[in-house]
């Protein structure tokens, strides 16, 4: 018990002293997650809206695939992207393996199905009068879809936040594609895994507390949005 209390005290001291290792890992995590969620939003939101408002053959299959992709293991995404960007892969010449760019690609792939699916659910639950109302008031098809997105903004933001929650907490993609390089691609999650393995439990715990705080903030924000 004394060990845990002592470790906890050390962890808090590390956070309060703004330890360089901790700050760098937190900054890398947040920066990579923000870029990933930006790209995932650009792809996932239009995809979710498009699937939600249009009828086409195979729509049920597309929804099933999107649902399945939500449960995609992070190491599988890591493996697939690794195969593409590693030296022997089709994009090997870009030389981006073990860089933040590689992590962003992997986490974007991970987040797109989440953002798309949550957006799709929001669109399916939307008032069916929104688009016809916009059309009868003189909106074009694109303008009416924009109005739909505007009406559903809180649901769409919730989709984006859910995607952010997924990528900030994942370890597989960050480890496999980033390589856990100190001060460059080391994130909170990869640092926790490594420091704990080394026996540096206090540093791992300090990062764990920050990660939990970020997750808590994200979920609090999500709850506020869902209540609107």
């Amino acid at each position, binding site marked *: 018990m004394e060990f845990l209390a002592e470790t906890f005290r050390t962890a808090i001291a590390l956070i309060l002293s703004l330890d360089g290792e901790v700050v760098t890992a937190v900054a890398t995590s947040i920066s990579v997650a923000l870029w990933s969620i930006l790209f995932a939003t650009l792809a996932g939101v239009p995809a979710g809206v498009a699937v939600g408002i249009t009828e086409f053959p195979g729509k049920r299959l597309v929804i099933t695939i999107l649902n399945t992709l939500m449960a995609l293991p992070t190491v599988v995404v890591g493996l697939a992207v690794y195969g593409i960007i590693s030296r022997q892969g089709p994009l090997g010449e870009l030389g981006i393996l073990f860089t933040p760019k590689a992590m962003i690609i992997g986490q974007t792939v991970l987040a797109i199905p989440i953002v798309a699916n949550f957006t799709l659910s929001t669109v399916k639950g939307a008032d069916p*009068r*929104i688009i016809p*109302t916009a*059309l*009868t*008031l*003189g909106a074009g*098809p694109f303008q009416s879809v924009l109005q739909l997105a*505007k*009406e559903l903004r809180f649901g769409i933001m919730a989709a984006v936040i859910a995607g952010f929650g997924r990528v900030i907490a994942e370890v597989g993609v960050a480890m496999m594609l980033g390589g856990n390089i100190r001060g460059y691609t080391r994130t909170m999650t990869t640092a926790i895994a490594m420091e704990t393995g080394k026996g540096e439990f206090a540093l791992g715990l300090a990062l764990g507390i920050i990660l939990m705080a970020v997750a808590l903030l994200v979920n609090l924000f999500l709850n506020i949005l869902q209540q609107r």
Partner: protein
Amino acid sequence: MNALYRLIGIRKSHGQRTVLAIDDLALYPGKLYTLTGANGAGKTTLLNLLALLTPPCGGELRYEEEPVRWSNAALLPLRRQVTLLHQSPYLFDGIVFTNVAFGLKLRGIRGEEKQRRVKQALELVGLPGFGQRRARELSGGEAQRVAMARALALEPKVLLLDEPLANVDRATSEYLEGVIAALPGRGTTVIMTTHDPEHPGRLGGELIHLVAGELACRI
């Protein structure tokens, strides 16, 4: 006189069921038409067709004697002359002003002209000073009036009304009847559906009665 709408051999089906079958119907500008008929008679289907929202399965619809081409590019300028007010209108999230100004903004009407038309439309429906109220906090009758103001602010050539007085209290109904009856005098053609047998007599204009999607009589 050129017809505003001309329907020639129009057919509309849902699956195997024919919901609209009109061989010949001409509607003229500046008039008020009331569409009557039982549930499922095809009134709303006809309004959606006239609002250029859904194409017919067969036949030809002409607007100002020109055949309607059902492509997005061709429809947009026509749709901006025609406004449909649904039976249970949807108000966008936000304040009343942004709702009433929605269509004006799409048409590039801004600044003082936009302010003037919103104010005028709200006064016309008896809701002066409602601009800053939140749309979602309005009563059913007030929401119906705001939706009417949103349509009137556009000064449309044609106003299509789907049971506009069905879900409102008596006072609102009487008020809106007066507003609707005055529209043809301002150059707006009104085509409205109703279940109330007294409306055609009170509002004047021409009555079109549909039975099972077909034109039964025209008075």
